[in-house]
């Protein structure tokens, strides 16, 4: 199984402000750390508070985005929850409601390599890109959501075995929204 993105909200403003947290759905499988626009609600009966996530677009579609952050409860064999402790096996299925938070300046997050498209380049920016759900490594910031790599660090992942489970991760700080 391809490892999925893992997100840690080290210090984000949305932890303290209710209105910067929403429920959303998407027409594609979502992973934690994916960025998105929430421009409208789903319009489905019984989902009056659920927004439809759409992929970042050029121009205004890169600004003031939201980020997926759903508890990593892995579904095994499409039916068993909680058996698999490895958060790298977690993703949000199409049509499943998930949590998203509004990214704010100064937010600090840690993500694994799978959360960022491309390869780390000099400049150390991870930015929103047209048509890409993940942040993308970049040499410079953009007129939109931009994170700066503060450090390369690690995550300790539980996979159920007795061994070292440190994986490479990146600590990022949001330095631009628009």
């Amino acid at each position, binding site marked *: 199984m391809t490892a999925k993105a893992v997100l840690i909200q080290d210090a984000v403003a949305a932890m303290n402000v*209710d*209105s910067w947290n929403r429920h959303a759905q998407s027409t594609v499988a979502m992973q934690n750390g994916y960025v998105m626009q929430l421009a409208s609600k789903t319009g489905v009966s019984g989902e009056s508070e659920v927004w439809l996530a759409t992929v970042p677009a050029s121009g205004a579609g890169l600004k003031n985005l939201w980020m997926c952050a759903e508890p990593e409860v892995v579904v095994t064999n499409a039916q068993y929850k909680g058996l698999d402790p490895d958060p790298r096996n977690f993703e949000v299925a199409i049509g499943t409601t998930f949590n998203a938070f509004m990214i704010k300046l100064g937010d600090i997050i840690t993500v694994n390599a799978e959360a960022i498209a491309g390869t780390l380049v000099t400049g150390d920016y991870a930015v929103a890109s047209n048509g890409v759900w993940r942040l993308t490594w970049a040499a410079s910031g953009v007129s939109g959501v931009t994170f700066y790599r503060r450090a390369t660090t690690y995550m300790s992942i539980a996979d159920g075995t007795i061994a070292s489970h440190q994986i490479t991760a990146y600590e990022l700080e949001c330095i631009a929204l628009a």
Partner: protein
Amino acid sequence: MAYSILLQDAVAAANIDSFNRSAVSASVYENGAVGYFTGKSTTAGEAEVWTMVAPVTAHLYDLWMVYEPEVVLTSSKYKGLDPDVRNFINAIGDVFSVYKPELGDIITLTDDGITGTKGANTFITATDGDPFLNWNTAAVSGLSYKLIGTTYLSLATGSIDTQRVTAYQFECVALA
């Protein structure tokens, strides 16, 4: 006359103290109306009260929105007798509560709090000289809200019947 009604469905100011202030104005102000501060009140005892005026073309940003508990004053002296929030307004000189709109805020407003006609418009925006937001076709370089949908408010008027009034839910999409 029915006055504007505002519901703060999800606003950042509900969690951030500094996004809330007290204000006073030389004009009457209804809930959901907006304005900017020209300074603090110089009246004795109002050290933390700001003076508020309607937006102007050069100042459609950094606006604050009125949101005061709807305790209606009847016959200029009796409070709490009238349950109909549509009869509530902040009189000239009264100190009232205002909050700072933020991107992503969701509010519900009645038509009485919006200038113009909805028609095909899907935005309400700050407008020169008007404390009310105005129906518009698009956001402006200033406080702007996007229409999410048409809904209703259930009001208490004291009578037994349906008391739903049309309202609109908006999301704040621009501040400056």
